[in-house]
């Protein structure tokens, strides 16, 4: 336990000091840390072990999110793990109930009343259906139904009996939950690591012969995407906007040329001038919000507006760990980070303007260096994730699949 605690603190420090860059690396480290937390957590044998695990993960998750609130991948991954725990618990519960039902039908009589008055017997189908509905987000269907506590029913009904076969089942259920959760988490790690290949597979459907593609800054997903199309023998050109002030577009251009693609480097201000010659804009996202809005490197909003004006399709590539279940309210301020002004201006040359010691105490020259840009969903034509291509108004569906409603607030 103390070992895990020190790991958590170390990771929190790294996040706070922004030592880990890139949402994929962050997501991966977070999942691996959570896996250690789960495997080291000592789970109680009776009652709800699932909720014990959930509480442990939530506690760690809250710390991680607080360390770097702008890196949304951390929160996403924590919520994915929580969803996995809930799902595994549910499938075990339905299996247990089905098993118990076969063994002893009379046990149901002394059941707790999760639903209403005067219930002589609760069939397994009903319990399973009710438990499933607790996992899904609230919907019109379940509006009139009460909140069933049937997730606990299998445990209580199994504790009511004292036949040995039942107790043997119970301890195997204990071990099984942790085991299943760790398996699910491993699958998640695998998914995060493999997202680039999944997305790149779809490149051939979207990039056609003799096309001109525009991209901004540098994204590994975009690089893999373009190279996959090149390998399938499509010939096309790429315009790379350099992405001031970090000029990562230069690095992308170098990589593209190394793989044999015809590349043109342009300044960010030239995007509007060049957009009429472009067939498609492809960028990588930092995060995708629940309404379909995109958080991307600074400058993508300008590219999106230019694309909209000239009716050029604006395609966003995002792995599933970038899908965030939150709705952005005031994203330009709350989901943005200001980096060091030294990336823009050399302090030596401007030291007289930036002098805090002069006159009123605050200098007349201010430098603002935001990291991210928000693109509203109306400007995006298509999202390509590892599950396929979707329109912005469909993102809520993917989010409902990956996350549980109870985990939105941590």
């Amino acid at each position, binding site marked *: 336990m103390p070992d895990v605690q020190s790991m958590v603190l170390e990771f929190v420090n790294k996040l706070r000091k922004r030592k880990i860059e890139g949402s994929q690396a962050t997501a991966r480290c977070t999942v691996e840390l959570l896996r250690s937390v789960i495997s080291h957590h000592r789970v109680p044998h009776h009652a709800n072990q699932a909720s014990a695990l959930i509480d442990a993960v939530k506690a760690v998750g809250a710390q991680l999110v607080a360390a770097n609130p702008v890196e949304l991948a951390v929160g996403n991954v924590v919520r994915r793990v929580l969803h996995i725990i809930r799902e595994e618990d549910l499938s075990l519960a339905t299996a247990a109930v089905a098993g118990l039902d076969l063994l002893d039908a009379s046990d149901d009589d002394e059941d707790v009343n999760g*639903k*209403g*008055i*005067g*219930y*002589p*017997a609760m*069939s397994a*189908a*009903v319990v399973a*259906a009710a438990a499933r509905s607790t996992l899904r*987000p*609230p*919907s*019109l*269907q379940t*509006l*009139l*139904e*009460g909140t069933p506590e049937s997730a606990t029913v299998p445990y209580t009904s199994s504790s009511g009996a004292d036949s040995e076969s039942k107790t043997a089942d119970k301890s195997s259920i204990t071990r099984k939950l942790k085991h299943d959760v760790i398996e699910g988490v491993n699958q998640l790690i695998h998914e995060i690591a493999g997202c680039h290949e999944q997305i790149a597979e779809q490149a051939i459907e979207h990039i056609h012969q003799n096309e001109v593609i525009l991209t901004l800054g540098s994204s590994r997903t975009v690089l893999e995407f373009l190279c996959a199309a090149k390998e399938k023998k499509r010939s096309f050109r790429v315009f790379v906007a350099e992405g001031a002030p970090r000029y990562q577009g230069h690095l992308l251009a170098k990589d593209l040329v190394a793989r044999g693609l015809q590349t043109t480097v342009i300044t960010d201000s030239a995007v509007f001038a060049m957009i009429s010659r472009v067939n498609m804009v492809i960028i990588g996202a930092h995060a995708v919000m*629940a*309404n*379909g809005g995109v958080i991307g490197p600074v400058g993508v909003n300008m590219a999106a507006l230019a694309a909209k004006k000239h009716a050029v399709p604006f395609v966003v590539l995002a792995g599933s760990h970038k899908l965030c279940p939150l*709705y952005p*309210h*005031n994203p330009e301020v709350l989901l943005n980070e200001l980096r060091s002004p030294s990336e823009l201006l050399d302090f030596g040359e401007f030291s007289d303007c930036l002098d805090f010691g002069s006159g009123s105490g605050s200098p007349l020259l201010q430098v603002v260096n935001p990291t991210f840009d928000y693109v509203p*969903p109306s400007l995006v034509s298509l999202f390509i994730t590892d599950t396929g291509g979707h329109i912005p*108004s*469909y993102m*809520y*569906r993917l989010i409902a699949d990956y996350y549980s*409603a109870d985990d939105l607030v941590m």
Partner: protein
Amino acid sequence: MWRRSASFILDDERRRTSDSPPMAADNTTTARAPFQNPDAISAYYQTRAAHHGVITSDWLAQAQAAVGGVSGEEHPDSSAAELGKEKTFNVIEEFNGWRKQPDLAEAVAAIRALAAVIRASEASTMMELEIELKKASDTLKLWDKTSISLTAGCDLFIRYVTRTSALEYEDFNSAKSRLLERAEKFGEISCKARKIIAMLSQDFIFDGCTILVHGLSRVVLEILKTAAQNNKLFRVLCTEGRPDGTGVLLSNELSKLDVPVKLLLDSAVAYSMDEVDMVFVGADGVVESGGIINMMGTYQIALVAHSMNKPVYVAAESYKFARLYPLDQKDMAPALRPIEFGVKIPAKVEVEMSARDYTPPQYLTLLFTDLGVLSPSVVSDELIQLYL
């Protein structure tokens, strides 16, 4: 009357000549006719106006003529009438009784009326009960074709009954008591829904923002009350809301909470739109496309807000989702409401009396419901899950 073509002169002639026969035909049909207002004055908007305390004299006269003094006299002692008709009287009277309470949502009143039907029913099997409920729900819908919450609430309850009676293996009496209990609980659900919506929308109201509100929705009022209680600093612009005068009522409520309020003429919305940060409206109904049906004027405000890139947020409980798909403004059952101008209008001049309009989904930004924050495209998904 529809004004699709320039042949409105012909239509006018046709309307004048066809005025007399339908009235005669109505009186010869079943005793339900007195309950159907021949002038299609919307009972739903009538009740809303009653809640707001705005009742004009000629409105009252028309209402009385339509109801014709049936209210309290017939139902207990109409033993000569058939059993079916007695139920008919009961359900509508029950519904009207519940509906008059100003704080009760329309759908809750409908479900309580259906609960009364269950209580009064003498059915001995689930199938019989379901058929009775269906008949009662059809009667209610026929009584007021313009109220979307009523239709949606009835459908939701009937759907719940049908679905769960197939699932549960229980005897009839416990099923009946469960349905009654659920129906009673629905009132709580509705209250809780308003609180959930208020909680969800808190993050979207930031300090120093200006909110434009149209109409007097109890849900929007709850949102603003919660924000004021959380010590958020914001100010509200409310439209006058003719003919119901919702602006003055809303400003009364808000000044009690010490929220700075400014009243606008309905026509001053575009003038003030640049200082507005967001628009909040309620909804009488949410249709399948994700658009909303709300008090007249909402479409106008949404258009202006959209053209100036201001977000339009709709606060609506989930039981207002209805299976309607209006293609244009006139595609719904007409809901008319007499308007008082204060001066005499010449006889030949027509007045646009529709009480509501339809706002298409592309002008709405987000819907705050008790199912969560939704974008307009999620509505049809929810409806499909319920009905298919």
